[in-house]
């Protein structure tokens, strides 16, 4: 088994979950690397959609912001943001939306707005950006974020992007909500009946005890929880040589 970082494991595990998916609404950083890795491995037909208004990007270098000029040159289509959000996202053309957050709860509700009180927060986070509408309109939501007992909490301070709430999703919602959470410790799914997060695989070397230590509620564990397959040599080569040669996001 080759050496790899926790960030590399997260990217690889995410990329594998994209097998068979078509249209991905991505941000910069790990989701972008995961999608580009998937395109070269598990999901060759995947198309990348960026909220800045770019469809079918073929970035010639690692994009450093969500609106990097390298996303534009050589892409298939650039639209204004209204059409991107209305005709692609709201229309229901997005298969997978990637989200992250400062806090997540057991139902996959995400907080990217504030820690503390909204009116005078302890920490003012960036806010929604497009996350709220992505959460509601993408067919599936994949969450990538680091896992600690401060980020996996019993009650989040603010619901920026709704997940499974406490069960059923309203009929106006287009998608299934969060289906996958990938952290540095493992891969999680959600119980179809209760909408509750469930540990499905542990990254190599991680224990269930570590997961519980880094979760603010008692994490459900799937019967038959398994070990995440470690990154292959080829996956690591693509990440290290092609997608993030300077290791900005994956070292």
């Amino acid at each position, binding site marked *: 088994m080759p050496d790899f970082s926790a960030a590399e494991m997260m990217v690889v595990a995410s990329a594998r979950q994209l097998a068979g998916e*078509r*249209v991905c609404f991505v941000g910069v950083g790990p989701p972008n690397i995961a999608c580009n890795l998937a395109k070269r491995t598990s999901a*060759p*037909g995947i*198309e990348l959609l960026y909220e800045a208004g*770019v*469809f*079918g990007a*073929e970035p*010639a*270098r690692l994009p450093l912001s969500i609106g*990097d*000029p*390298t996303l*534009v*040159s*050589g*892409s*298939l*289509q*650039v639209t204004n943001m209204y*059409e991107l959000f*209305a*005709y692609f996202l*709201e*229309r*229901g*053309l997005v298969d997978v939306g990637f989200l992250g957050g400062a806090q997540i709860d057991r139902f996959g509700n995400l907080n990217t707005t504030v820690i503390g009180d909204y009116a005078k927060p302890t920490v003012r986070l960036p806010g929604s950006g497009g996350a709220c509408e992505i959460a509601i309109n993408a067919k599936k939501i994949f969450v990538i974020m680091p896992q600690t007992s401060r980020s996996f909490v019993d009650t989040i301070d603010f619901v920026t992007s709704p997940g499974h709430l406490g069960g059923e999703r309203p009929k106006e919602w*287009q998608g299934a909500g969060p289906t996958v959470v990938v952290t540095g410790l493992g891969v999680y799914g959600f119980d179809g009946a209760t909408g509750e997060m469930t540990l499905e695989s542990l990254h190599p070397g991680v224990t269930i005890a570590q997961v519980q230590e880094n979760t603010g509620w008692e994490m459900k564990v799937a019967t038959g929880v398994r070990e995440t397959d470690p990154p292959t040599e080829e996956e690591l080569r693509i990440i290290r040589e092609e997608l993030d040669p300077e290791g900005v996001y994956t070292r």
Partner: protein
Amino acid sequence: MPETGTGKVASMRDAVQELIRDGDTVAIEGFTHLICFAAGHEIIRQGKRDLTLCRLTPDVIYDQMIGAGVARKLVFSWLGNPGVGSLHAVRRRVERHDPEPLEIEEYSHFGMVCRYVAGASKLPFFPIRSYYQSDLPAANPKIVPVHSPYGDETVYAVPPLNPDVTIVHAQRADAKGDAQIWGLLGCQKEAAFAAERVIVVCEELVDESVIRSDPNRTVIPGLIVDAVVVEPKACHPSFAQGYYDRDNRFYIDWDRISRDPDQLENWLKEWVHGTDSHAEYVEKLGAERWASLAPGEAWSEPVNYGEYA
């Protein structure tokens, strides 16, 4: 939703046969510009029935199709032969139920455009500042007032329009259906995103690299396209900016033809049923006619997108 860009290029015959079913709601959009007559003719050739036809301006193409009996219903906002006069085949069915009634559903241009926008955005309604004190809402109960949640202002709502099939014509497209249009854009983008299935017809099939050299010019992404038909001059007698002019003589001739059901029937026999494909129609029209429709050149100043490697 089609699979990843493979095998979408089709003949008009196959595209119409596979993607349009009797009873479908069909939009052939294009406002005066890029009206895909060739698609309409193929629908007539194949004898499709009971279609609901949608277009802002039914134009000569829907007069031909309705005269040929493919449609049960018409959804529109302006019913005429632009710059010439009436659509007589449509009028006969509306005024005299001859040879049978035609159901109509009528809006204004902006109302129709916003119906496609709502359809393309999956919105249950779209608000517009029109229709106050017009008789249109009385004639069409789908046009209803809606109150602003912020105060006492009232605007009107139109419902989404989601065609089963939208057909758009583009100057150039790649094999996956990524289509670029310049000149009048009408509401093709909205009508395509609103549709369940999309047929892109193009003047020229180009390499993907041409599309990627100017991504701001792309109107329809291949993502939503089911078939790509390469059919030059498919818009005659309407025009394709930079490719051929509007054939005004045809629009004038059509007034005479469509006034008389027998002449219309004969025209369909000769020019639609009598031709096997649009290529034959184009040839039949003759080189001289095409030469008279050729525009001069007026090229856009290119722009530099920059290489960011």
